[in-house]
């Protein structure tokens, strides 16, 4: 922990230099390079589910004797889809059932980050994205775990790691070069205006390089985008293009999971977005789907008990979803702690029995051959990977 924060501090300046990286300047008009020159053939896509997804509702433990009593309203809604006899899937994800049957959709339940007790979205998401045991020290937000992983991949370019979103999220922030774009209408400038802008940027290397990159990404986006599609579909399609090219690590967010009231209705939109995102990635990736692992993780779970407003409040243990041809699907990983009051965390939340970081680390080790030492020291400092199930093939 100490070592990590010291090295993060030392590299603060190099870190920020990393955003412009030498490679960007050197690569105008990149066409996707051949896959053989890329560091690995596998793709890891991390979806951050912001707002704390209710794992107990998305992946319902219908076989647990205490479940129905804890959630009389939520359990009584439209029927969930049986998975393995104990767990059942939220009906809004029904279109993903073929993936489950094909072994390309799986879950881990009763998992969490190391974050406990305060149940703040801000801190919970920071810990999830930083990949640290706690947000201590001013530099804990300087880099995210996916960026530190990108830094370990030999031959990585600025396209190897790609975040899709308007904001630069912590998970991919840091010293390793990475790209960030958000599919959007790019008719800000007329063709004449674009030429003039290039002229205006020309003498300043920082602006010239970033502008070249901006125009390049915007052009790719304009080529591939169908603006009549909802934004999350545009994101999935844009990301598919990047993943078919040089990109190996990708991250984006789906929001709307903070369902304190009227959860049955409130979960429909984020679940629809999650479902459609996965299906569009599958369609867009074609043969590359077989080498893709999508993991969807959230900052924490929600209370075991339904609250007085037909919703749930901030909790602890939750569920993680994985999809793709490279995952070991068709099963639910994790040790089930039970839902009787004594088994709950703080007598209110699902007790976490596994660390989402350990699951991700195990997947990374298999997908990219990253050593346990690097994973436990650099990507997820302080993590003990021991005993985590293998979620990828």
């Amino acid at each position, binding site marked *: 922990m100490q070592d990590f924060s010291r090295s993060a501090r030392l590299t603060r300046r190099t870190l920020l*230099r990393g955003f412009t990286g030498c490679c960007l300047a050197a690569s105008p008009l990149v066409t996707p390079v051949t896959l053989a020159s890329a560091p690995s053939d596998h793709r890891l896509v991390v979806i951050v589910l912001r707002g704390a997804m209710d794992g107990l509702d998305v992946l319902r433990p219908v076989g647990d004797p205490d479940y129905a009593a804890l959630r009389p309203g939520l359990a009584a809604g439209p029927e969930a889809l049986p998975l393995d006899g104990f767990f059942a899937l939220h009906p809004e994800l029904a279109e993903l059932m073929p993936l489950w049957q094909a072994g390309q959709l799986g879950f881990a339940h009763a998992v969490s980050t190391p974050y406990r007790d305060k149940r703040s979205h801000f801190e919970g998401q920071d810990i999830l994205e930083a990949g640290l045991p706690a947000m201590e020290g001013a530099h804990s*937000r300087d880099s995210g775990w996916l960026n530190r992983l990108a830094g370990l991949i030999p031959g990585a370019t600025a396209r190897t790691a790609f975040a899709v979103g308007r904001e*630069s999220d912590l998970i991919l922030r840091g010293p390793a070069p990475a*790209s960030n774009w958000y599919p959007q209408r790019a008719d800000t400038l007329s063709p004449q205006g674009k030429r003039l802008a290039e002229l*205006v*940027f020309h003498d300043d290397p920082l602006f010239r390089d970033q502008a070249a990159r901006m125009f390049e990404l915007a052009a790719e986006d304009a080529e591939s985008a169908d603006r009549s599609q909802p934004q999350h579909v545009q994101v999935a399609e844009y990301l598919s293009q990047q993943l078919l090219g040089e990109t190996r690590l990708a991250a984006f967010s789906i929001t709307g999971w903070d369902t304190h009231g009227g959860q049955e209705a409130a979960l429909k939109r984020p679940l629809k977005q999650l479902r459609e995102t996965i299906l569009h990635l599958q369609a867009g990736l074609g043969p590359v789907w077989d080498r893709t692992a999508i993991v969807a993780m959230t900052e924490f779970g929600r209370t075991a008990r339904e609250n007085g407003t037909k919703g749930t409040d901030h909790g602890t243990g939750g569920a993680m979803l994985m999809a793709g041809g490279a995952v070991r699907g068709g099963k639910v990983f994790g040790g089930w702690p039970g839902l009787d009051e004594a088994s709950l965390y703080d007598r209110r939340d699902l007790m976490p029995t596994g660390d989402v970081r350990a699951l991700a680390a195990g997947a990374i080790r298999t997908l990219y051959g990253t050593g346990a030492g690097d994973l436990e020291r650099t990507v997820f400092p302080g993590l003990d990977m021991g005993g985590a199930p293998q979620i990828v093939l």
Partner: protein
Amino acid sequence: MFQPHLAAIRFGTGRSPVHPDPASAQAMLDALSGPDSGAAAFPVSPMDDVLPWVEPYRALVKARNQGDADPQEVLDMLKEIRKSERRHWLEGLASTVSRGVAADDGFRDRLTLFWADHFTAAGRGAFLRNRVDTYVDAAIRPNVAGKFADMLKAAELHPVMLQYLNQNTSVGPGSKLAENRPNRRLGLNENLGRELLELHTVGVDAGYGQEDVRQMAELLAGLNVTNEMEMVFQPGRAEPGAEHVLGFSSSPRRDQLQDILNALDYLAVHPDTAAHLSRKLAVHFVSDTPDEDLVASMAARYRESGGDLMQVYDAMLSHPAAWAPELQKIKRPVDYVTSALRGLGADPHALVATARETPRQTYRDLVNPLIFMGQRWGEPDGPNGWPEEGAAWITANALAQRLKWAMRASSMPGVPAMAEPLQLAEAALGPLAGERLRFAAGAAETRGEGIGLVLISPEFQRR
């Protein structure tokens, strides 16, 4: 040495077609020691505005806990609080930008943003969530031209800071409260103690260790936030016994606030604090790799004057390195939009009126663009504040957002119809507008695009 246009761009909120550039460094310092007309003209909501919610909300939560109120009512009231508070927050953002647009000389506004970033806090909890501007207006802005010790005390002891860095949950492990309630596992939270040393005073390179952090946290135990959103010192939470931090020793009684104030006074004039703050100011205003002689002369003046900030600013502004012609820094998004609106001659009162009357417009014109440019107002990435390095701000994605905003800027409310893009180049940049930029501004197909090109130019985005 001193250049009027550099003074406006590098140390102020930008050049303006309405306000002349500062005449001299002395004039800038004189204005700074005079009255704060910006704060008076563009007020920020005070803490009093949130207090009427506190009692009714707590009563309702209590009733719900006893089964006497529907939980939905609590959610509904929270929603109402949030709605009302977001309005204040939005007007706070508009006021901050307007102050920079309206300033005769934006040095005070820039210093306020600098020190607010130095003492970064984000609002937490139902009542303080949107109160960062309130904190800055109460603890930072009135103190930017005084002794650092006064700003330090005002910032560390403000309820927004106490809550942000978890001081309100910190209890001395040997305190009366902890002894009386052994089951509650009460203990120290070192967050404020650590950041106070690492970020706010002596700095991370100073010679302190974990034991100093621990003792600082023990010394701070007792500070809490009341229901009236005021700081209070509660002796029952304090850790008994003398504490020792970097050569400072408190009294062993530890039943009063005075020990904490003494420690802050001590740290405020510590030589490591002088060095840390002088470098930070030079990095912010002049260069990511500032001239060492500039930093040394500022630090010397800091030490000689016992942390009199006016003296430190004087040392900075009278050093030739502060006036290097090359523009080395990148404007952060808030500075960028403020200086653009100022350069366009926007009516600052219209900005505030828009926020009040058509808040959606302000979300479109300011709040959301700032988020997409990477600076979410009131919600910094962490207690170390926003990055200084230009490369953190000028990424392909962020540049696209700046470009998008720049192309719309001339049609925003309060922005007068400006005749020619070249006029903007002259008004906002003067001698700094390069030949390529002047050509592009004249060659653009539309006025809006020409104005956008001036605003997106490296000359305009740097300072």
